[in-house]
């Protein structure tokens, strides 16, 4: 089940940068609250700088990127291929497409609480184009994602521009998504309409460092529930002391995230990247993300990397582990993703890069193996699989997971 509130991907659109786009963007920024004073200012600065004199830029390199991915943890096992292909046409156009599959075997705490284990498959396709004009790259694309109870279509459009002697880059993008949320073995069908506004700026600071700022605002309207998820409420009549009923979400959501990134080339050949992201939204969730990455080449072929990421969030206004009674509030949810919790990731990766000439017509071939260990700890989501506890006093839930990515990247 693709989560209704999730991002729209990418794709082909005929949307042009015109007055209505800027009008809509400015209107959104002026109606979504305090933290966006910063984005308004940066947007104005960005749009002004966009008009500066420019020279030639570069299109993405022709690439075939194939990844086998696997997530294993918390009762979930998800794996499949992810293939991305880029091919330039002449000197001004580059086409791209991707194919992505999630094969899911689900027996998570949410599933086991109110249903039984299931398997499903999600398939996603995309097609896109980049157009280069001097130092400006205009990109557009289309993405389709389907499961047996969910269909998502989205289009996107973005503009990226280098300027200031190539030390600065600015990009902005707009995406629109349409989801159709269904339910297995029923004629249940609801829609979600989504808009995404992105603005990014990166700057070379010195000959050894650069930084970037990204702002993204997403609005959703429609059926934002997961139709299978249920909340828990006190029912003293039942032996276990509680019962379940289907969740009720608000029908709109607006969120904004701002991220700061910095990358530094160390005195020896290695790099360190730091990142901080602040997130806020109309459901009351506030989140902080800290990410640190160290990359260390060994010789001309091997590269090692290590990563630590920490994330924490506060709960949504309408989240409770257990409600006082059925229908206690207007909106009720017990998704652990909406609770107060934190998680961390410890990652390790190794890559081997072959030089030119390893295969005919191949300029570069890289093989990578990336492993991430994740630990999630919940502050107010309880483990209902633990018996012999009074309702609402069960131990707090926690789980860990491993993410594996094996990839082959070929540039030609």
């Amino acid at each position, binding site marked *: 089940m693709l989560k209704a509130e999730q991002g729209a991907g990418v794709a082909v659109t005929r949307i042009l940068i015109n007055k209505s786009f800027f009008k809509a963007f400015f209107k959104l920024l002026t109606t979504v609250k305090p933290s966006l004073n910063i984005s308004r200012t940066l947007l104005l600065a960005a749009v002004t700088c966009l008009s500066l004199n420019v020279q030639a830029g570069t299109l993405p390199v022709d690439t075939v990127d194939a990844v086998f991915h696997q997530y294993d943890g918390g009762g979930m096992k*998800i794996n499949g291929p992810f293939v991305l292909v880029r091919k330039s046409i002449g000197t001004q156009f580059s086409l791209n497409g991707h194919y992505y599959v999630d094969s899911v075997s689900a027996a998570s705490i*949410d599933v086991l609480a109110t249903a039984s284990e299931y398997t499903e498959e999600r398939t996603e396709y995309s097609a896109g184009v980049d157009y280069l004009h001097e130092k400006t790259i205009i990109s557009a694309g289309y993405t389709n994602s389907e499961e047996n109870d969910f269909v998502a279509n989205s289009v996107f459009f973005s503009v990226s521009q280098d300027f200031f002697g190539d030390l600065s880059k600015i990009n902005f993008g707009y995406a629109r998504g349409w989801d159709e949320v269904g339910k297995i073995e029923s004629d249940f069908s609801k829609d979600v309409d989504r808009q995404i506004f992105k603005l990014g700026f990166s700057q070379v600071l010195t000959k050894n460092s650069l930084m970037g700022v990204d702002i993204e605002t997403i609005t959703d309207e429609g059926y934002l529930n997961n139709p299978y998820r249920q909340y828990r409420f006190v029912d003293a009549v039942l032996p276990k002391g509680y019962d379940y009923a289907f969740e009720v979400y608000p029908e709109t959501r607006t969120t904004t995230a701002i991220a700061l990134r910095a990358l530094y080339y160390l005195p020896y050949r290695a790099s360190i*990247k730091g990142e901080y992201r602040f*997130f806020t939204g109309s459901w009351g969730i506030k989140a902080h993300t800290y990410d640190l990455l160290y990359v260390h080449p060994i010789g001309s072929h091997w590269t090692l990397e290590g990563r630590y990421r920490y994330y924490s969030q506060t709960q949504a206004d309408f989240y409770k582990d257990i409600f006082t009674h059925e229908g206690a509030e207007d909106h009720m949810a017990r*998704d652990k993703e909406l609770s107060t919790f934190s998680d961390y990731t410890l990652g390790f990766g190794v890559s081997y890069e072959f030089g030119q000439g390893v295969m005919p017509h191949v300029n570069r071939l890289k093989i990578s193996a990336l492993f991430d260990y994740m630990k999630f700890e919940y502050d107010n989501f309880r483990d209902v699989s633990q018996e012999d506890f009074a309702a609402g006093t069960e131990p707090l839930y926690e789980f860990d997971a491993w993410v594996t990515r094996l990839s082959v990247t070929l540039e030609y």
Partner: protein
Amino acid sequence: MRTRLPAFLLLFQLCFLSACSDIKPWVKPYERSNLADPIMSLDRHGAAGSYIHHVYQAREGARGAEGGAGGGCGCN
């Protein structure tokens, strides 16, 4: 604080716009060898990098500003 913050940002913006027009690029093309090293890329892993965003979007309440492609599996 509510009145001081926009004022500060306005000042920042004016400085920024001024920088666009008056200050010359301070890192010359021949000084950019370290920046051109693949280890200085903000997105070194392409599709594999996009995938990890999927993983977080499905399990965390936050979304956006990942610096890469969005989308994702919401497998619960």
